C-alpha cells in the first residue's frame, strides 16, 4: 500500500495566486521539481498540510517566464535558483537570486542538454 497524492495541472499565470491561497490555508512548500521534456519543462510544485500532499504541475515552454513564489514562500528561493541554474528555467523576481552561482558549475544548465 502506498501513500496517495494528487497531481493538479496549473497554468503558470495562476501560480502565485495559488501559492498565496495555499499559504493562507497553512500549507507548506515541500518541493519544486523540474523535469526537462521535449517542448520545455514540467515543473511540479508540491505543497503539504499535515499528511495531505498536493502537487501542482506546470507544463511550460522553454521561453516562458515563471514568476518566483519566493515572495510567498521564502524557502522557494533555493529551489528556484536551482532550477534556474541547472535547467535554465526562466524564473523572475527571486528574492535571493544567486544569479547562476548557487552551484558554481563549469557547464551551464547541464539538464537542459
Amino acid at each position: 500500500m502506498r501513500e496517495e497524492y494528487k497531481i493538479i495541472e496549473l497554468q503558470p499565470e495562476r501560480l502565485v495566486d495559488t501559492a498565496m491561497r495555499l499559504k493562507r490555508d497553512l500549507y507548506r512548500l515541500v518541493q519544486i521539481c523540474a523535469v526537462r521534456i521535449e517542448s520545455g519543462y514540467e515543473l511540479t510544485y508540491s505543497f503539504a498540510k499535515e499528511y495531505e500532499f498536493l502537487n501542482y504541475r506546470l507544463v511550460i515552454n522553454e521561453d516562458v517566464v515563471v514568476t518566483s513564489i519566493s515572495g510567498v514562500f521564502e524557502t522557494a528561493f533555493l529551489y528556484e535558483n536551482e532550477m534556474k541554474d541547472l535547467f535554465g528555467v526562466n524564473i523572475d523576481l527571486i528574492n535571493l537570486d544567486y544569479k547562476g552561482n548557487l552551484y558554481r558549475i563549469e557547464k551551464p544548465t547541464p539538464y537542459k542538454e
Partner: protein
Amino acid sequence: MAKLKKSPWIIHYDGSSCNGCDIEVLACLTPLYDVERFGVINTGNPKHADILLITGGINAQNKKVVEQIYQQMPEPKVVVAVGICAYNGGIFKECYNILGGVDKVIPVDIYVPGCAARPESIIDGVVQAVDLLEMKQDYFEKNGISYNKAMKNKNESNKENES
C-alpha cells in the same frame, strides 16, 4: 632524525564526497580507532597540518579551495586521497560536475581505496603518509628544495624532453 614521524597532524577536507568517507575519517579519531595514539591531531587548520586527508572528487567549485588549502600547508606535506571518489571520481566520475580525482589539482601521495574507505585503511594510509613525510623532510634538508617542487620540475622537464 625522525622529527615528523611521531606527530603527523592532519587536516581533513571534504571535496565532493558523499560523506561516507568523511565519517570514516572522523571515526578514525574516535576511541575505537584513536589515531591520536600515533600523535595525529585533526587540526582543521592548513597552517598547522602535515597531512591533507581529502575525500571525494574535485568539482568546479571546490577546485580552488582544495588548491588553496594545499598551498597554505607548510612543507613538508603529504596528501592522502581517501576513497574511490578521491581517486578518480568514483561512482560519480560521469557526473557533469566532477572533474575527476584529487590529483586533477594537487599532487596526491597516497590513495586509500574503499567506498567507503574503512578506518583501518585510513590508518594504513596515514602510516604510509608519515613515512613519506620523513622522506620529504630529508629530501628538503639535503637538497634545499621541497620534494614536491623538485618532482614538479622534473615532470615538467620530462615533458619538455618528450615534446
